[in-house]
Structure formats: C-alpha cells, structure tokens
C-alpha cells in the first residue's frame, strides 16, 4: 500500500500540473488567444494557428532529460526547430512567396518602388530605439527588422544574430502583421488630408511576358551584388518568381507555392510557438521588444506615407499618399488596408492593384535591409 502511494505521488509530481507555474498558464492563455484570433476572427490564420498551438506545445512543463523540450538536444521538437535556428525555413518560404507573387504592378509603375524603400525606415529607426533602450547591437538589429513587417526575414536575421530572441521577435512580428488592419488606418488618416485620400491613380500599362521573365534575373543580380548577405532570401524569392513566370517550370512553381510553403509554414509556426516557453519568454526584455515592435510598424507606415507626400511635391501626376502605407511588406494585408481606407472616402476608388507595387517592393527592401544589418553585425569566423 505504501509502494502504491509512493508510486502515485511520484507520478503526480512528474505531471505538468505539478510542474507548472503562473508563467506557463499565461503563455497557454496567449496561445489560446492566437488560436481564437486565427479561427474566429480570421486574422492571418495560416500563421496564428500554428504559432498558437506551438505555444501550447511549448508550455507543457516537462521533466528535463527525457528529450521532450524544444531546447533539449535530442528532442523531436529540437530537430524540427533546427530549420528555424539554421535559417532554413525562411528562404523556403520566400521561394513560395516568389512563386505566388505577381510583380507586374510594380513593373508597370517602378516609381512606386521608392515607397517600399521609404517604409524600411521603420527598420533602422527601431534599431536606434533598441540601442537606446540598452540592447546590444546584434539584438537591436534583430528587433529593428520587425519594422520590415516580414516574418520570415525577421526570423532569418534573428536566427543569425540573436537566436536567444527568436521567440519574442517572431511572436511580435507575426502578431503585428496580423494587427496591420488595426495599426495602420489611424496613422494613415492622421497624416493625409481628405483631398489626398481621394487622388485617383492612372491605369498601369500592360507588362509583357518578357519583362516578367527578365525582371527576377536582373533584380536578383542587382540586389545581391549590392547586398550579398541578402542572397539566401532574395535568391529564393526571385528564383520562385522565375519558376512562375517562365511557365515551362509550372510544376515546380506549383510545388513551391503549395506543398513546400505550406509544410514549412506549419513547421516554422509550430516550432517558433513552442520556443516561447514561459520561463524564457515572459521577461522585461520581451515586453520591450513588443513595445518596439509596435513602434516599428507605426514608424514604417508613417515613413511610407510621408515619403509619398514628398514625392507629390515633384510629380505632375500625383500619387495617392495612402500607397505609402503599402510599403510595409505585410503582403497583401497592408495593400488591402490601403484599398479599404481609400474606399472609405470614395467607394469607386480602387487602389488595391496600385498598392501591390510598393507592397512587393517592400519585401525586397526588407530583405536588403536584413542583409545589410547582417553584414554590419556579423563577425566572420
């Protein structure tokens, strides 16, 4: 009878209920909120559901030494997490993004690419803010890249420069990407007048097939010769796009934008979520990262809109300054936000296709920004 009691007590002491503390409970609640936002509100469900469930998986307290935790070298989750820490998953996601992106609106009106460049001010101003708060330069660079509003880019750079911050940075980046429809509109309305929001854009010219095929080759060579550290991300982005546009490799393009990107998104979201264990994630540092992340998105939006207004001082054919907000590379959400805000003033003003130009150039700009920060911060071995 005593042996039975002993065994029962030992079993109970090894359960999650006995090992949990308030931090795990908080994180489980956060995970449930992510799942709720993804399913009920449909905010970026393909990201929030894997991340949310991953948070639940990562916050089941486990007995150390059994190879269960994501941070234990011989655990299954740790092997799957290798794709994040080694920077493998983000380039594969970029392959899929390239294979599903249509660059023709950007090619039709290349001037709008500058709005994508302007929005990347959010990266560097947030970098300064993180330095001011006392973060080390490599950590500040990883926090700054949240301003690029690109989840794979943020994870890629953080894995290279500050792997200890992958959890909070990834959660912050994806959370704010999902909240773009909430964050951007007030800033856009504050910085623009009604007359400016009513500006109609000219119909873009037709882009030939040859242009769409040549662009990824030229874009890749130019961007990667300028910032070689952006090679893994931009190489895969432009490669995926070439597969799509050349038509003769349609099978590969279909695989890239369906099976490959979906599989990698599942693994990336789930393992990033699982890395946010309560004892690691709930720190004052994470709170600072969340605050800086919100600042990053706000600054990026404001920079894009203000730059569009500056461009209008020199242009005969004015551009709608709302398009500047689409330079924040949360594709296609920020373009949809521009469409929504524009249509609020004039229901017949269709800005979505015009907004896709700065939106996709923002993806290129944020990858270049990540490459630049990596080359500044990395210490060659």
């Amino acid at each position: 009878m005593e042996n039975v009691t002993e065994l029962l007590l030992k079993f109970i002491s090894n359960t999650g209920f006995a090992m949990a503390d308030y931090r795990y409970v908080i994180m489980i609640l956060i995970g449930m909120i992510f799942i709720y936002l993804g399913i009920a509100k449909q905010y970026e469900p393909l990201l929030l559901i894997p991340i949310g469930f991953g948070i639940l998986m990562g916050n089941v307290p486990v007995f150390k030494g059994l190879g269960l935790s994501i941070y234990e070298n011989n655990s299954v989750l740790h092997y799957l997490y290798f794709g994040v820490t080694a920077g493998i998953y983000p380039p594969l996601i970029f392959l899929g993004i390239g294979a599903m992106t249509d660059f023709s609106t950007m090619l039709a009106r290349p001037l709008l690419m500058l709005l994508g460049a302007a929005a990347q001010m959010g990266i560097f101003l947030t970098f300064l803010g993180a330095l001011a708060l006392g973060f080390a330069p490599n950590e500040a660079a990883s926090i700054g890249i949240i301003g690029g509003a690109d989840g794979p880019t943020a994870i890629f750079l953080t894995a290279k420069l500050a792997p200890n911050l992958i959890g909070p940075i990834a959660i912050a980046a994806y959370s704010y990407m999902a909240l773009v429809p909430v964050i951007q509109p007030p800033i856009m309305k504050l910085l623009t007048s009604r007359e400016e929001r009513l500006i109609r854009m000219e119909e873009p010219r037709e882009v030939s097939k040859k242009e769409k095929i040549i662009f990824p080759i030229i874009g890749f060579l130019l961007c990667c010769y300028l910032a070689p550290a952006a090679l893994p991300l931009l190489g895969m982005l432009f490669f995926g796009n070439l597969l799509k546009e050349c038509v003769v490799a349609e099978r590969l393009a279909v695989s890239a934008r369906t099976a490959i990107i979906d599989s990698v998104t599942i693994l990336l979201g789930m393992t990033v979520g699982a890395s946010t264990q309560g004892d690691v994630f709930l720190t004052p540092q994470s709170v600072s990262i969340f605050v800086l992340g919100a600042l990053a998105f706000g600054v990026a939006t404001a920079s894009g809109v203000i730059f569009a207004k500056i461009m209008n001082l020199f242009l005969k054919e004015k551009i709608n300054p709302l398009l500047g907000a689409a330079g924040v590379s949360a594709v296609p959400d920020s373009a949809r936000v521009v469409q929504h805000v524009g249509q609020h003033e004039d229901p017949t003003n269709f800005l979505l296709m015009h907004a896709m130009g700065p939106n996709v150039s923002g993806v290129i700009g944020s990858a270049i920004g990540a490459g630049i920060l990596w080359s500044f911060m990395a210490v060659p071995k």
Partner: protein
Amino acid sequence: MKGLEAIAFHNGWAISAVGISIVFTGLTLLALIISQLHKVLKLWDERGIYYERLKNMGQKEETTAMPDFPLPQNMEESARQFKLLTERMEDPFSLPELLKLSEKCGLSHPHSTMNALLRSKRIVPDGKGYFHWNE
C-alpha cells in the same frame, strides 16, 4: 549604457544612415532599370526594321548625291556636246578633265552646264572619284 549615448557608442547613427541609403540606392537603381526595360525590349523586337532602314539609307546616299532636278530644255544641246566629249575620254571619266576639255573646245557656260548635268543625274558618280553617264 542607454539613450543617445548608447546609440553613439555603438555607431548607431552611421549604421542607420548607411543602411537606409543602401536600401534606397538599391531600389532606386532597380526602378530605373525596370523603367527602361520595356523600351530596350521593344528596340530588340524591332531590330529587323531598324537594320532595314539603315541599309536603305546607305544605298540612297550612294546613288543620289543631290535631289532630283530635270535638265532645262535649253541645255539639251550642251548636254549632247558634253556626251560627245566624254566619248573621247576614258569611262568612267574625271570631272576636272571634262571641264578642261570643254573649255578648250569653247563650249558655252561649261560650269553651269556641268552643274545641271550633275543635278539632273545625267552624270552620276561611281563612288571612286570618277563619273559616268547615267544610261
């Protein structure tokens, strides 16, 4: 270390300035190249037409040094006399020699006659500095 001191210590201002400049430069260059790409492709697609045009322009210059101009009626007799003179010369003939011979033979207004013959393309160059009658 925090605040502006931390930014200055870690060279933050320079990194940010250079970084955003490189991003702008890269995307500006890409935008410039893209903006010209469709024109370059159009030139390449129409290269046959431009080659034909260049070829035709070259041939026109060879055969017509001056615009078309009919020989005045009162110079037909002078033209016949010049033709008789050239029969005594080599073919193709030298224009200065023909002029010298016409002056020697006492033909009237040799310069204006020769000018009219050239303008009306009765006499045409052979491209090597000599001339022949345009039969």
